[in-house]
């Protein structure tokens, strides 16, 4: 069974994200704001009375017989949670600045570390624990939102507007960039030499990405992206990576025998004479693949071409859609 269909690994991945965002990015940040005297727990107690009067902001009662549906519902709620945390903490950062470096956030010091609360039991039990955990963090986020409204940092209407307007980045951004590079050689040259400032001109603000490198597939080299140390990914441009991107089943074997992993797990066969180059995102540089333009697409326009590009192809682990499939859908 390819690990991309592995339910256990999928649950684990959602659990880890939930703990990362809810635990590390939300809970520990609140703790830090209190520790630094920027907010007080009393404000949270006050705000919670107000926030809990409107508990309908999220529906935690996904009812389905199918594990896949339950997982999809959790993933959807996780996406909402992440979006809410990102927006709220950006607002807070501007008004209540605290040191954000990793020592301060407890990443390296075990005595500062927040313990993970693990899931136990059968798949059903763990899914319901995960759902409860998400509800906890969603509720906490609601209370935090109420606190910053009460503080007068932002007006409620404005915050609601921001949450509604914010369109999270998606891999389609990458698809458009790839299609433009296929059709405009000047753009491609600029993209390959300095992706960040080239994309800024296309209105992609990558202010939280220190450097973006676009690596081009050729007749001789096929590129693949991984982060063996954690989960570095061009989030700001492409949104969240596919869930398996962070799994050990991907990260460990891909650097040792990429050809085999591509073939067995992703059904992507790269001939032996093509060098496979795996980029391990170990520093502050983020990577995206510029795949080869498929044959038989000479007559296609940029917009049409962008629909050929898949999320997997931007990581170097998947094929493009077939031109015929895209042409039919027009």
């Amino acid at each position: 069974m390819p690990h991309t269909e592995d339910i256990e690994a999928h649950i684990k991945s959602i659990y880890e994200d939930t703990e990362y965002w809810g635990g590390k990015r939300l809970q520990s940040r609140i703790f830090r704001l209190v520790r630094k005297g920027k907010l007080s727990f009393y404000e949270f107690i006050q705000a919670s009375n107000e926030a809990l009067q409107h508990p309908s902001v999220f529906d935690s009662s996904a009812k389905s017989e199918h594990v896949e549906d339950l997982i999809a519902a959790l993933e959807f709620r996780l996406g909402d949670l992440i979006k809410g945390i990102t927006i709220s903490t950006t607002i807070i950062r501007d008004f209540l600045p605290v040191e954000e470096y990793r020592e301060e956030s407890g990443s390296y010091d075990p005595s500062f570390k927040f313990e993970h609360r693990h899931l136990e039991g059968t798949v059903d039990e763990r899914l319901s624990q995960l759902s409860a955990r998400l509800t906890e963090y969603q509720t906490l986020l609601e209370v935090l939102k109420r606190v910053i409204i009460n503080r007068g940092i932002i007006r409620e209407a404005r915050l609601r507007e921001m949450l509604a307007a914010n369109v999270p980045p998606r891999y389609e951004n990458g698809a458009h960039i790839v299609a433009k590079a296929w059709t405009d050689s000047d753009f491609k040259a600029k993209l390959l030499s300095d992706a960040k400032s080239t994309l800024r001109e296309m209105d992609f603000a990558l202010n939280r990405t220190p450097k973006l490198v676009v690596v081009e597939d050729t007749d001789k080299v096929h590129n693949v992206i991984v982060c063996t140390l954690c989960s570095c990914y061009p989030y700001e441009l492409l949104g969240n990576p596919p869930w398996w991107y962070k799994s050990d089943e991907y990260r460990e074997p891909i650097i040792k025998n990429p050809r085999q992993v591509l073939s067995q797990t992703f059904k992507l066969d790269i001939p032996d004479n093509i060098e496979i180059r795996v980029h391990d995102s170990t520093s502050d540089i983020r990577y995206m693949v510029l795949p080869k333009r498929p044959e038989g697409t000479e007559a296609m326009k940029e917009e049409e071409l962008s629909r050929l590009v898949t999320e997997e192809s931007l990581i170097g682990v998947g094929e493009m859609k077939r031109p015929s499939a895209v042409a039919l859908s027009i």
Partner: protein
Amino acid sequence: MEIFNPDDKVTVKKENPSGTKRTPVYVRGKTGTVLTSHGVVKDYESDHKDFRGPVYSVIFACEDLFGRLIADANAKVVVDIHEYWLEKA
């Protein structure tokens, strides 16, 4: 200024010379070739406020890292490494 240039052979130090924990264990003590010199890349948001100097993309043959028995013969791994981790090979 950067000490190394593209195509230079470099060896990764075995011991952490202090600072970044992000040089993966699998390249320590190994020799590769500088693919790209990025200069100083600074992350303004996270912890990387300390000066860590220039960073390079260094390319290694998978076989050199993991041995012929395991590794793909025509595969390479590119790792981003800070200058103070590197020595001329």
